[in-house]
């Protein structure tokens, strides 16, 4: 036997395996599976109920699978103005709020990580501080302020949606700044310096060198921002009037009405949660991409 073969052999035997180990891992997976089922129960009920037609829906039969698939409840939900208008409003709110917030966060993060200026060590913690201020704490001053600016629902032609977008852009800045700062901190200083020596100033270094490698950070930042803006209830409730209601308010309003069939409520909830899922699926693939490959030695 060659030395290599011996080494390989020892490598195989190196992991000590007890007689019970196959059972141990089976039990481990069973436990995990049971826990997963437990947590997925509400989702299951939501999906099966949404797919039933109105005659089939009943509380005792809520665990049963639908006899025949029906999309009637989705149609009914979509026909409700609170849901359809809410959906459109939420898209109009969440898309610009997450895009603009991420763009600004990218600029902030770049400057704080790679273009240090005097006082950067004070500015960054101050921005981060914004992350730890709960919505409730700023609610009353914010309401007063937006009312004074005529950006709160009622007087505003967009029903407060424009003002709400502004609020979410600004409220998202701490987290997007943090995401981009951490990301850009991982980029080699030499690439930034190389671009400077090549004749690019701050803006051109940002646009030509830093932004092209930032899609993973955009992925994270957009997913985070989109989800939190889409799911926000409190600001939406306070800042908008009926025509500016985002879908979270609409969902709450139809669920509060006693007469609504369960299947329509569940279908509405599913509709309301689809966009965040979609954003995750579309942007999630940017996460793991090695965009820096080849820049440095090897």
């Amino acid at each position: 036997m060659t030395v290599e073969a011996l080494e390989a052999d020892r490598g195989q035997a190196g992991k000590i395996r007890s007689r019970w180990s196959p059972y141990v891992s089976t039990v481990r997976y069973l436990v995990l599976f049971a826990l997963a089922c437990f947590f997925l129960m509400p989702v299951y009920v939501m999906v099966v109920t949404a797919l039933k037609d109105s005659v089939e829906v009943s509380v005792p039969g809520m665990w049963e699978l639908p006899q025949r698939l029906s999309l009637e409840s989705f149609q009914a939900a979509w026909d409700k103005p609170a849901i359809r208008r809410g959906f459109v409003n939420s898209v109009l709110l969440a898309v610009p709020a997450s895009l603009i917030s991420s763009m600004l966060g990218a600029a902030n993060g770049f400057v704080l990580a790679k273009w240090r200026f005097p006082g950067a060590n004070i500015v960054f913690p101050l921005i981060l501080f914004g992350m730890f201020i709960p919505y409730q704490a700023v609610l009353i001053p914010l309401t007063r302020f937006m009312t004074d600016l005529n950006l709160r629902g009622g007087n505003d032609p967009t029903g407060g949606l424009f003002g709400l977008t502004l609020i979410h852009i600004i409220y998202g800045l701490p987290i997007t700044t943090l995401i981009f700062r951490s990301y850009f901190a991982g980029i080699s200083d030499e690439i930034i310096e190389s671009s400077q020596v090549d004749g690019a100033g701050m803006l051109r270094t940002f646009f030509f060198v830093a932004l092209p490698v930032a899609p993973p950070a955009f992925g994270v930042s957009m997913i985070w921002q989109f989800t939190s803006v889409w799911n926000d209830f409190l600001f939406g409730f306070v800042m908008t009037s009926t025509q500016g209601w985002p879908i979270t308010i609409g969902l709450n309003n139809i669920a509060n009405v006693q007469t609504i069939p369960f299947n329509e409520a569940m279908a509405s909830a599913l509709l309301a949660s689809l966009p965040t899922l979609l954003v995750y699926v579309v942007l999630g693939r940017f996460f793991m991409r090695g965009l820096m490959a080849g820049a440095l030695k090897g």
Partner: protein
Amino acid sequence: MVTEKTAKAEQPDKTSTIGPAGIRLERVSKRFRGGVTAVDEVDLEVQPGEFVVLVGPSGCGKSTVLRMIAGLEDVSAGRVYIGDRDVTNELPQRRDVAMVFQSYALYPRMTVRRNLGFGLRMRGTPRAERERRVAEVAQVLGLDHLLDRRPAALSGGQRQRVAMGRAIVREPKAFLMDEPLSNLDAKLRVSMRAQLSLLHQRLGATTVYVTHDQIEAMTLGQRVAVLRDGSLQQYDTPQRLFREPVNLFVAAFIGSPSMNFVQGSVSGGTADLAGVRVPVPAGTPLAGADRQVIIGVRPTAMALATANGWPRLTVEPGIVEDLGDERYVIFDVDAPQVDTDATRAAVAARSADETSLLATERARFTVRLPTDVPVSVGEPLALSVNPDRLHFFDPQTGAALG
């Protein structure tokens, strides 16, 4: 790689541009926050078209000097001139220098073509002109078939050439290179070194090159600046650094294998080198002195004893290293070894494993001998010392004497 044809094509273009500029540092210092002085009042003048190497152990401030020339580091005191222009407070993008980084620092999302053209694009060179120059440089560096690749799809050597090409294509006032070869494997490094030399001959560009490798410094530099702890020790041609080091540090740092040192004394016109009287060159102040000194002997300053009248020294070889056409013989001499900060710093900079494994009080010497006479460990060997090639240093200050 650099073909005759393209080098000629380069010529008319070179004359039409402003051409290389000199660089001048006047008492330049760098103090970092926290009070560390990385560079201490360095004066340095680089002639237009000259290839200057900054060399020294790690942490000696050589990279900081380079970064201050590039504008990537603020200057704490002193002035920096490129050409006739004072650029001390100028932004890097306005200095018109090109830099090659140790990590290459290629733009990862750009193709080789766009990497090469980026500097020209940022300076507003028209598209047609840009494409012509990129194509030209790509051909010189043998990158033409790689132009549409991204850096990730290149080998280490190819990335290195792209980094080099990105600097060349700009035709800047000066090239700054920060250990550009240190990430290549040993073989590639030697061939790139030769190509760098060729390239400099062709382009005639002012170049400041930073390295910790004294062989790189000696082979590439027209002049070499040796730095230690942020201050300039000696700035001279490689020949003079080797022949006339101004102090113990330079003497120990330059040359491979390094210079041998031993404690000794001078009196009555002769030096006591491990019990052997060696005449001190007449007419020097040292000839009349009576004092303790450190004596430095290059490994090539000793030879097998012949009847040439040189003082003789009989030694007992401890280690014999045969390299084919030359042979290193290592032995202890009967005199105390030299262990000053300067020699230690120089040795540590070379490589950690050059320090001796077996501690010894006696000075250890290495000599280079031809291979035609057999030498064996333990057998007494008669050597002669070339008295003209001894170096004397002050034991306190380390400064060269005589």
